[in-house]
């Protein structure tokens, strides 16, 4: 296949040698490399170090994004440890928290996705949700709203759905997937399985 001038320019810019190499592309490449030097060594050393504050911020963001399960958060925060002292105070606190919880539950359900990304293997995305069937239906509806026909299934206690996403994946479909922490499949083959908490 013959290459035109633009192709040769592009290939030379990318550092790939081709017949009839573009001198312009090569010269531009050399200049751009010279003008994009590395970070100064002191700044590079600073960001290359292990930074506990940065890591903590990252983990907090991962929790907010629903990447880490509620069970994991509870364990990480140590709140599963029984507290035997100050029982009365704890009871009062529990009652207060219960009251607050009742008040905010509706809002929470309305705003925060109730599912958690559990992982993915062999192209199957696994989510965890209190009501897998409800989430499955919601996902199917939202995908349909974005123009994608998804098929739900329930077999061997597994609740899931699959769909062939037209490529490239449209921004509105991408938004639906990202809202539910579902990775966008590069080949367009979407398979999601949803488990209730504690069910493998």
């Amino acid at each position, binding site marked *: 296949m013959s290459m035109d001038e633009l192709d040769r320019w592009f290939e030379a810019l*990318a550092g790939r040698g081709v017949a009839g190499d573009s001198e312009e592309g090569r010269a531009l490449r050399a*200049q751009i490399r010279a003008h994009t030097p590395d970070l100064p060594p002191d700044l590079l050393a600073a960001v290359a170090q292990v930074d506990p504050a940065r890591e903590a911020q990252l983990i907090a963001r991962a929790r907010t994004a629903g990447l880490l*399960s509620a069970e994991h958060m509870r364990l990480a925060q140590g709140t599963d440890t029984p507290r035997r002292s100050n029982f009365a105070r704890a009871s009062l606190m529990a009652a207060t928290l219960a009251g607050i919880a009742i008040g905010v539950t509706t809002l929470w359900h309305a705003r925060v996705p109730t599912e958690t990304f559990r992982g993915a293997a062999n192209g199957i995305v696994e989510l965890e949700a209190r009501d897998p069937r409800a989430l499955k239906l919601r996902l199917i509806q939202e995908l349909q709203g974005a123009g994608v026909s998804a098929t739900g299934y329930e077999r061997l206690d597994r609740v899931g759905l699959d769909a062939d996403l037209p490529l*490239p994946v449209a*921004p509105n479909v991408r938004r639906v997937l990202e809202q539910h922490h579902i990775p966008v499949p590069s080949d367009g083959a979407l398979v999601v399985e949803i488990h209730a908490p504690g069910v493998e």
Partner: protein
Amino acid sequence: MDRDAFIRACREGGTAIERALRELDRSFFAKLYQIGVQTLHDADAARDLVQDTFIKVWQRCATFRGDSELLPWIKAILRHGAIERLRRRNTEVPLEDDQGLTSEAALRIVNLSLEGNDTPEQAAQQRERAQAFHRGWAQFQKDDPLHASVMTWIVEDGLSNDDIAQLLERSPGATREFISQCRKRVRRYLAEWYALAWNSSETR
């Protein structure tokens, strides 16, 4: 972090993801941060971009192909995020360049790197060309960070037409048009450098 550990963590989920997130930060933060700073010209925005990228990496981990390398895949996610940010914001005029250096300081570094065994006259010509390039390129980065960044990534990692199409979410034809635009624009911004370094008939 190696790709096998990454794939294992992706399969296991939960606590394995937290461990792996820390590992990702330790392994790749510096490299990705550098790309973020070079692209966004803002240290805080670059830090935010890298962390956002790590989150997306886990949200999309099922799409990672085990036979490819991890860092290029993560860099593609980061660059996609950078493009989204560039598209969202109107270009701001940076007072300092991507390394936190003033324009004059960065140019001094380029000039120093050009000093060799040339005659004084040749060295002066080289410096003049370098200064012309620096002025034009800095203006291009400021006015049109998307095209300038994609050109930088083509140079750094040898992105192919398909890589760019995926990054920009464009068809191959539209990507070719984008590349053509890169060339047109860089020629306009670097007109002074072209005039010094090239006979105009060679570059058209």
